[in-house]
Structure formats: C-alpha cells, structure tokens
C-alpha cells in the first residue's frame, strides 16, 4: 500500500513542475512587458523601466528567473496584486473559504439527490422513472449553467421573490469571519437571522453549480448499480432470503460506490470551472470571480498565483482520489 501511494505521488511531481512552468510562463507570454503592462496607458520613462526590470530580475536569463520564481513560491511568496497591493496568497486565502463552501454544498446537493435517484432508476430499470431520470440528467449534463443561473434568478428571485440575487449575506448583517464559512460563522455570531440569510443566499448558487455533478452522479450510480446487480453475490444474497433493502442497500450499493466515489472526486476540477461561471452570476465573493476580475484588470500576478494555487489544489484532490480508489479497490494497487 505504501509503495502504491509513493508511486502515485512520484507520478504527480512532473505534473506539478509543469504547473509551475505554466504559471511562470503565463506572465511572460502575455504580449508586452509585465512592467509596461502594469503602468498601462500612462507609460514609463526608459531609465525607470530598466531600473524596475533589474529590481524584478527581468533582465536575467530565463532559467535564472525560473529558479528565482521557484524560490519565491517555496517561501509562499506569490507576488503582490497590482490593483490592491495585497499579497496574492493573502487574498486567495481570504476568498477561498467562500468557494469551498459553495463547492461543498453543490457536491452535497449532487450526492444527496443523485445517489438515491441513480439507485432507484437502476432497481426500476426501464420504468417511467428510469427514462425520466435519464433524459433529465442528460439535459442537466448539457446545461449551460450560466444561463441556468439566470433562469433560476428569473423564476425564484424576480417572479417569486424567494431568494436574493447576489452575494453571500444581506447587507444588514456583519459577520466577522472566523472559519470563513458563512453558514458556520453566522451560526456562531449572535446576529439573529444571519444564518437564514446566509442559507437563502446559498441555495440558488448551490443548485446551479450542483446541476452538472448531479447529472453525472445519477448516471454513474445507475450504470454502476446495474452492473453490480447482475453479479453472482447479489443472487446469492437474494437466495439467502435477505430483504431487498439489505441486498440493494448493503451488498449492492457498497460495491457500486467505488466508481461513483472516483467520479465524485474527479468532478472537483470541473466544479472549479463551473464555480467561475456561478460566482460571476451571483456576485459570489470567491476565488473564481477574483480570477476573472484579475483578467479584466490585467492583474497578472493575481492570475499567475491563482492559476498555480487552483491547479495544485485540483492536482492534490485527484491524487487523493487516486489513493482512495486504491484503498477501496485492492485490485488496482499493483
């Protein structure tokens, strides 16, 4: 097992180096000199430009610059945002909990609804419910989620007035961030009604971001369950006279979960992609909308640091899923 984990980790190293290279090159591939870009329209005197270039080490050969960059990254120094002058890492850490909260809720939403629906469709294969679920999930899978968000706002916020349109909390509350998760922080505070407000703000973004994972989880659970239900041990369990709840719930589901867990883990990457769209629709103050703003403001240090952090995180989650998969399924450990 240890050997398996070590192999997987060693496979990740080149990918990580590649991500470092990509984020390093990013700022240098952008047309124009990073310093000139920073000063933009106002322009900069040639002497001052040369001085700044020397200060930032931009006159050094590329490999020296890369080694320098690695040194900074290793010390947790990801540069300073051009527009706010705050360290990139600080800004990232302040906004990251909002994205995690949204992502976790979306994933929970997808699992809570997708798993039972998939199991039920598999058990009732060929039924009306099965067909309905399959077509709904294919529609969900094809959904342009930025439009889905607009539609839900149109229905629930504008027509029915049930949910707020944007942000994480109504403006009348102020919650000091302790954990960064608004649901927990608002519960800990003594502001009455803040928790409900946070919850109401969270519902629509959760549904929007959770739609595609929901479709994926439901489809994967159904097909994996169908496969498992044909196995000999299911027939044995039935022949032993176990209740069908036990057969399906314990013997079936436990084995059907292996590929589902993998799929859930692999959704993390696309979830972050979806978060970019969701956060920008609902003005959700998270990492993804921060990155989009950075692009619009041409704030390249933020983009560089953000890409490095997000890609590394996705990589680590994929590694964790891989290892978890190996633990659940000893057959692939070789």
């Amino acid at each position, binding site marked *: 097992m240890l050997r398996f984990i070590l192999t997987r980790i060693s496979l990740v190293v*080149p*990918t990580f180096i*590649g*991500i470092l290279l*990509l984020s390093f090159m*990013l700022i240098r*591939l*952008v*047309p124009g000199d990073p310093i000139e870009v920073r000063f933009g329209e106002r322009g900069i005197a040639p002497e001052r430009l040369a001085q700044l270039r020397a200060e930032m080490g931009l006159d050094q050969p590329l490999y020296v610059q890369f080694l320098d960059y690695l040194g900074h990254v290793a010390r947790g120094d990801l540069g300073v945002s051009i527009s706010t002058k705050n360290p990139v890492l600080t800004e990232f850490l302040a906004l990251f909990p909002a994205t995690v909260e949204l992502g976790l809720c979306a994933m929970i939403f997808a699992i809570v609804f997708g798993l039972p629906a998939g199991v039920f469709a598999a058990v009732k294969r060929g039924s009306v419910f099965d067909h309905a679920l399959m*077509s709904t999930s*294919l*529609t969900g*899978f*094809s*959904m*342009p989620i*930025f*439009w*889905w968000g*607009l*539609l839900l*706002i*149109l229905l629930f*916020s*504008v027509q029915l007035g049930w949910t707020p349109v944007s942000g994480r909390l109504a403006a009348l509350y102020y919650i000091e961030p302790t954990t960064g998760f608004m649901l927990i922080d608002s519960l800990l505070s003594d502001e009455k009604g803040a928790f409900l407000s946070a919850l109401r703000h969270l519902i629509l973004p959760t549904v929007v971001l959770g739609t595609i994972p929901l479709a994926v989880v439901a489809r994967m659970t159904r097909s994996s369950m169908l496969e498992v239900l044909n196995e000999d041990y299911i027939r044995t369990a039935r022949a032993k006279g176990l209740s069908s709840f036990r057969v399906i719930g314990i013997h079936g589901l436990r084995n059907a979960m292996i590929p589902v867990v993998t799929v859930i883990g692999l959704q993390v*990457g*696309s*979830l*972050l*992609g*979806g978060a*970019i*769209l969701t956060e*920008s*629709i609902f003005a959700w103050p998270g990492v*993804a909308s921060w*990155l*989009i703003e950075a*692009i*619009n403001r041409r704030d390249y240090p933020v*983009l560089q640091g953000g*890409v490095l952090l*997000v*890609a590394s995180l*996705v*990589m680590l989650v*994929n590694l964790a899923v891989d290892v978890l998969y190996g633990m659940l399924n000893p057959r692939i450990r070789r």
Partner: protein
Amino acid sequence: MSEAAATPTPQTEPVSAPLTPAREVWLHFRQNKGAMIGMYFIIALVIVAILADLLAPHSPIVQYREALLVPPVFQDGGSWRFILGTDDIGRDILSRLIHGARLSIIIGFIVVFLSLGFGVVLGLSAAFARGTVEILIMRLMDIMLALPSLLLAIVIVAILGPGLFNAMIAVSIVSLPHFTRLARASAMSELTREYVSSARIAGAGTLRLMFRTVLPNCMAPLIVQATLGFSNAILDAAALGFLGLGAQPPTPEWGTMLAGSLQYVQRAWWVVTFPGLAILLTVLAFNLMGDGLRDALDPKLKR
C-alpha cells in the same frame, strides 16, 4: 474472394447481400429515438446556419431605435414584426439567434477539426514513438487536464486577447488532451494486432502505418469523441462569450448575447431565455447523437 466471409451476416435478419460496416452502424443508430431526434435537430440547425441570410427576418446587428425591448409575439405588446422580441438596443432576437446558429456550427466545426487533427497526430506519435516522446506528450496532456478546462481556456484567452477566433483556439487547446489520449489508447491496442505486423513486414513506412493502416481502425471512438467535442466546444465558447472573453458585441454569438443580460431579468425575460435555450437544445442534440453513435459503434469496438 468470398464476400460473405468478410462481414458476417446478422442472424436475426437474413438478407441477400452482407451489410457494410457503415450500414450496420446506421441500423443500430436508427433504433435509438433520442439519437435520431438529435440528428434531425442538428441537420435542421445546419440548414438554418447555411440559409441564415435568407431565413432571418432582419439583420442581426441593425438597431431599431423605435422598438426597444419589444416582447415576443405571443405576449401582450408583441408583434409579428419581431417574433421573439427585441433586445435592449432594438435588435431582432430571432435574427440574432439564426445568425448565432451559423457561428455555433462554425465554432464546433473548427474546434473539433483542430483538436481532432492535432490530437490524432500527437496521440499516434506517442503510440508509435514510445520512450521520451511519449512521456513528454502524455505528461503535457496530464498537466492540461489538471487545470479546470474553463480556467485553462480563460488563461489562454487572457494571453491571446479576447475575441471569437482566440476563444476557438483556446477551446481547441483545452479539448486536445481528450483526443490525444483516446487516439493513443486505441492506437496502442491496434498496434498489437497481426495486420499491423504484416503491414510492417510488407514494408510499409511509419507514416503509412500510422495514417493508412492503424488510424482507420481507431476511428470509431474518435468519431464519438468528435461528436461530443462539438457540444463541449459550443458550450465552452458560449461560456467564454458570456464572461466577455469570447465573441465581442455586436457579434450574435449565443453566449455573448447572454452577457450583461442579468440586468434585464426583471423587465424582459425573453432577452435572457431564448439564447440560452438555443445553446441547451444544440448541446443536448449533439450529446444525444454522440451517445447514440457510441452505442451503435460499441459492438464493433468489443468485437
């Protein structure tokens, strides 16, 4: 040469002439209702895209200043002049959708053409060259897969600058790893077959082996991936357009039409609803057809 030996006749349906592989796939495909609906929708969409200039009642970019935010015909205040209503600066939404169909088909086609083309070359090179070349290519693909595809596309657009053409390049690059991995995997399994060895012994050069001997036998999964690639391309390009990084106004790209439409949810639901519906239906049609193709081609893959 006995023809009967080349393709086994299906036992269920005795026919005089053996089925060609394409016909066999078609017979399977035809039984899938969803896939057929998807295919008809796509054919209709392509016709609309080709005849956009004839079908659209108005120009997609002309602004009718006297008719701002006119509701669609079936709602009070609507008129047959603007069947699906007008947007905030008085452009006919139906005409913009029709011209947008042309853009979406072109986007899908170019993206799939580029990513399939480069993906096949890279994948086959990796499968044939092995060693360092293979490791380099496949590691690069792994890195690209480690980033969320939309984020990678955004980063590429940030480097190249926003615009429809750059968005297409970005989406092509993002979909490249899927085609490369698929091409490599199917080429590797074909390479162990005897017909490849015999072609090699007969003196076929590497290029001929790659593209004439092996590639045609890898086409089934690649065709499926290409169909699904169409829907991804349209979806990603629309997302970039929505974020203001793809096609720029006044281009009638469906995603771009939705950018900034959030401010109209209260006053003009039609501005928000129709472009997204067009994206959803198109993507759904390609996904239905892709699924149907996969099922139809699958027995061949297993054989």
